[in-house]
């Protein structure tokens, strides 16, 4: 029952977004021309910058990003191995890592581009008898040759953790509160991180190991660029 509720909630939100006038569409070719000019073959996933309140989000999030990027057609450097080496080299912490000159990553790993990720939200917000789980990831690809931004998108997933409507009255309220507590305890952020990744990865031009490589410029998606910068 809960799953169905979740699916419908998510699809309804999506539908609303589609219908509402604020959702402007753009194409991959129009939005990310530099990806098609530079066509990087390999991506180095850097340990994420964790801006959420959950200290464990960083390590957990890293287990979700390697597969979808590879399936999009890029050579993705081995995430666990790379992050371990970065720890040994003393560059695992975001402050150091995100201030490094990008050509260092080309020099050491031979990577064409790096993927920066920022965990913006990874939490459950409580209301009186309900709770919302939010996972929000901002992702950005930068060239190691020109240091320019080639691609950027944000994936956000909000899930209503309160149980189904179990009738009115005070008893119903109590049951709802209990269900919410149980759901929150079992809330698996990683599942939703996978979904948030899916949101932004569908806007990423396909890589050289994919049959759609350099053939997907016309694919449409929701434009996230703030109007003022365009």
């Amino acid at each position, binding site marked *: 029952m809960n799953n169905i509720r979740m699916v419908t909630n998510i699809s309804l939100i999506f539908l609303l977004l589609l219908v509402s006038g604020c959702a402007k569409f753009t194409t991959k070719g129009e939005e990310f021309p530099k990806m098609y000019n530079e066509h990087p073959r390999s991506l180095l996933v850097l340990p994420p910058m964790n801006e959420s309140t959950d200290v464990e989000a960083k390590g957990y999030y*890293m287990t979700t990003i390697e597969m979808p990027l590879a399936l999009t057609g890029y050579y993705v450097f081995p995430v666990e191995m790379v992050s371990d080496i970065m720890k040994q080299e003393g560059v695992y912490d975001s402050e150091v890592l995100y201030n490094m000159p990008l050509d260092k990553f080309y020099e050491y790993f031979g990577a064409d581009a790096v993927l920066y990720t920022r965990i913006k939200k990874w939490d459950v917000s409580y209301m009186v008898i309900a709770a919302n789980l939010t996972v929000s990831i901002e992702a950005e690809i930068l060239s190691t040759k020109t240091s320019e931004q080639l691609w950027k998108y944000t994936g956000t997933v909000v899930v209503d953790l309160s149980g189904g409507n179990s009738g009115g009255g005070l008893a119903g309220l109590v049951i709802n509160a209990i269900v919410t507590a149980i759901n929150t305890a079992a809330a698996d952020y990683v599942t939703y991180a996978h979904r948030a990744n899916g949101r932004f990865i569908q806007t990423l031009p396909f890589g050289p190991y994919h049959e759609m490589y350099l053939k997907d410029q016309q694919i449409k998606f929701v434009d996230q660029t703030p109007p003022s910068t365009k």
Partner: protein
Amino acid sequence: MLSSPRHIILLLIICAFSVTACQKRQPPLYYYNDYSVSYYAYKKDMSPESLLKLQQSMEKAIDDSGQSKSGRVPPGMYANVGYIYLKSGKPQEAVGAFTKEKNVYPESAHFMDRMIKKVELTEGVEDE
């Protein structure tokens, strides 16, 4: 009748399912076994047992890579498993896996050569 919210929701679900069903008919570009699940399980407890499970899951993904559309081992899979071998005191196997990564994905050659050289220096492994 048809305009009731129940019906619309049902329709949406059916749509979602039919779309995913179509996509699933083709084998994926790579076969990962349960890599993301066992990797996450390892990150949660960081125990030697879960590391071994992760290693075995990856070895199976490598063995079964023929099931995928590309027929190749996924990017980084040989390297990651090689790194586990290295940490478990099996430098020879590690160098073998790093070499395979490099052969399947030339994009990794620079990094793999660096690693192989490092292992040979610190562990005294001879390149075959």
